[in-house]
C-alpha cells in the first residue's frame, strides 16, 4: 500500500506514455499519429513534474514566512520538517523540473504545428492521410520514369 502511494504517479505516467506510443505505432492516419505523439510528449512532462513535487510544499514563488499565507502553510506541517527542508521558513517544491517542462511543452507544440503542416501538404499532394494509401501511391510515382523538369 505504501509502495503504491509512493509510486502511483510514476505508474500512471508510464501508462499514459504507453498509450501515446501505442497510438503512434498502431494507426496509419497521419493526424492521429501526431495526436499520439502529443500525448506521449505531455506525459513525459508529467513524469518530470512528479519528480519535483515535495510533500506539503507550495509553488516556488518566494513567500514571506511571517505573512498570512506563510503561517497558514507552516501550520499544516511538522515544525521539524519545515526546519529541515524549508528555505527561510517555507517549504517549496523543486523549481528546476518546472523550467525544463516549460521548455518541453513549447517544443512539443512547435513539433505539432510543423507535423500537421506537413500532413496538410501530404493530403494536398496525395489526396489522403492514410499511410497505406500513401505508400501505394508512392510506388506508382516510383515506377513512372521521371523526365527532366
Amino acid at each position, binding site marked *: 500500500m505504501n509502495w503504491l502511494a509512493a509510486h502511483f504517479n510514476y505508474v500512471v505516467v508510464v501508462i499514459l506514455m504507453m498509450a501515446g506510443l501505442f497510438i503512434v505505432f498502431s494507426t496509419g492516419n497521419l493526424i492521429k499519429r501526431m495526436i499520439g505523439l502529443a500525448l506521449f510528449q505531455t506525459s*513525459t512532462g508529467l513524469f518530470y513534474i512528479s519528480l519535483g513535487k515535495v510533500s506539503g510544499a507550495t509553488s516556488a514563488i518566494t513567500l514571506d514566512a511571517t505573512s498570512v499565507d506563510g503561517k497558514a502553510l507552516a501550520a499544516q506541517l511538522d515544525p521539524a520538517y519545515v526546519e529541515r527542508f524549508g528555505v527561510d521558513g517555507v517549504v517549496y517544491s523543486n523549481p528546476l523540473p518546472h523550467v525544463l517542462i516549460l521548455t518541453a511543452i513549447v*517544443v512539443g507544440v512547435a*513539433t505539432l504545428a510543423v507535423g500537421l503542416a506537413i500532413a496538410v501538404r501530404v493530403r494536398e499532394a496525395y489526396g489522403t492521410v492514410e499511410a497505406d494509401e500513401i505508400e501505394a501511391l508512392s510506388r506508382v510515382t516510383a515506377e513512372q520514369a521521371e523526365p527532366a*523538369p
Partner: protein
Amino acid sequence: MIELAALYVAPPTLTAHAPVLAIAVPLLGACAAALAPSGRASWVISVIASMVGAWMALAVAGEVMRENVIIYQLGGFAPPAGIALRIDAMGALLALLIGAVGTLGAIFSGHSLVAEVRPEKHTLFQAGFLLAQAGLVGLVYTGDAFNAFVFLEVSSIGTYALVAAGERRDRRALPAAFNYLIMGTLGATFYVIGVGFLYAATGTLNMADMAARLGTLDQSAAVQAGFAFIVAGLGLKAAMFPLHGWLPGAYAHGPSLISLFLAATATKAAIYLMARFLFEVFPDGAAFGEAFLDWVLAPLAAAAVIICSAQAVFSSELRRMIAFSSVAQVGFIFLGFSIASADGLSAALFYIVAHGLMKATMFMALGGFAISVGARRLNDFAGIAREAPWTALAFAIGAASLVGTPLTMGFLAKWQIIEAAIASGRVWMVVVMAAGSVLAVIYVGRMVEVMFFREAVPGAPRAKESPIGVLVPLLVLAGLSVWFGIDASLPQQLAQSGAAGLFTVRP
C-alpha cells in the same frame, strides 16, 4: 603537417567567445536571411554566416588543442547551477565538420535551390538551413544534458520542413519528411525520459557533474532505464540499425542540399552525444555498460553493415542506394565504438569525418547532375560521365573513399578501425568489415560502371556540366577526402586527443 595548437586564426578576445559565437552567428544569420528581400540576398547571407561560423569553429579547435578542454559559462553562473559549454577535441572536430560542410553546402545552394525548391521559399529555406547549423554546433558544444535536447530540437524542427521542401521535384519528400518527424521526435522524447531518470538519480543536469555522481551510486534500475532510454533515443536520431527506417526516405527524396547536410552532420552529432554518454557520463565500472557494448551495440552494428550494404546492392534508385550505404557506414562507426578503447574511439571519430566528407561529396555531385537532369533510377544515369565529367569525377572520388581506396581518407579510416579491432582481439569484426567492404565495392562498382562505362540512352535528356558555383565547393569537398587521405594530421590530432581524453578520465 598542420599543428592546430600553433594555429591562431582570431584575436584573443574573439577566441575567448568563439564557442558561443559559433552558435550565435549562424543564428543571427538565419534571422537576417528570413527577412532578406530576395533569394539571392538570402544566399549571400547564408554563405557569409556559415563562413564566419566555420571560422569560429576553427578558432575553438585551435584553442582546444592548446587548453585540452574549454569551459564557457553562460549567464555568468558556474555549473551545475548555470549552463556551461564544455568543448574537448571530440566536440571541436564535429563542429569543424559541421562548419565546413555547412559553408560548402551554402555555396552550393545558390544553384541547387533554384533547381529544386520553389522560388518564393528560398529565403525561408536558407534561414532554416542556418538554424540547423546553429543547432548542431550548439548540441556539440554544450555540457548540459537538457540543453543538448533543446539544441537537438532546434536543428531537427527546421530540418523536417527543409526535407519536405523537396516536394517540388518529388512528392514523396512529404511523407518521408513526416516519417522523419515522427521518428525524430520519438527519439528526442526518449532522450528526455532518459535524462529524467538520470536527474532523479543524481539531481543534476550538467554532464560532468552527472558523471561524478553516478560513479558513487550503485546501478539501480532507474539508472539502467535512463541509460536504455538515452541510447534508444539517440539511436533513433543517429539511424542506428534497426531504428533507421526514416533515413532512406528522407535522404532519397529531400533536396540535394539537405541530403548532403544531413548525411554529413545530423546523424554524426547524435552519435557524438551518444559517445559522450557511453564513455563519459556512465561510469567505467558499470557492468551493464560493458555488456551493452559487447552484446547489443556490436551485433547491431554488424547487422547494419551487412544488411544495409545488401539493401544498397539491390536498390534501383541511386539516392536510395547511397542512403542505405550511409546506414551501413554508421554501422562501421558503431563497431569502432564497441571496441571501447582509446584506439577504437579515435578510429570511429576519424571515420565520422571521413564518412561525412565522402557522402557530402556524393550527394553534392548528384545535386549537380540534378540541376540539369531529373534522373532518379541508377540506369538513367548511364553515360553521364561524358556529359558532366568534372561532377562525375568528384562523385567517383567520393565513391573511392567509400570503398576504401588507398590515398583517400576512407582507406585510412577503415584501416584504423581494423587495427583497433585486431589490437583488442575482436577478429570477427575484421571479417564483418571485410564483408561490408566487398558489398560496398559491388554497389559502388555498379554506380561507377553505369556512369562511366555505359553509353547514354538515346533520346534521354542530356545532362550538362555543373555550373562553376557548384563545381567549386564540390571539388573542394572531393579534394578534402584526398588531402586527408595523404596528410590526415588535422582531423587525426583532434580525434586522438578527444579519445585519449575520454579514456584517461576514468580511473
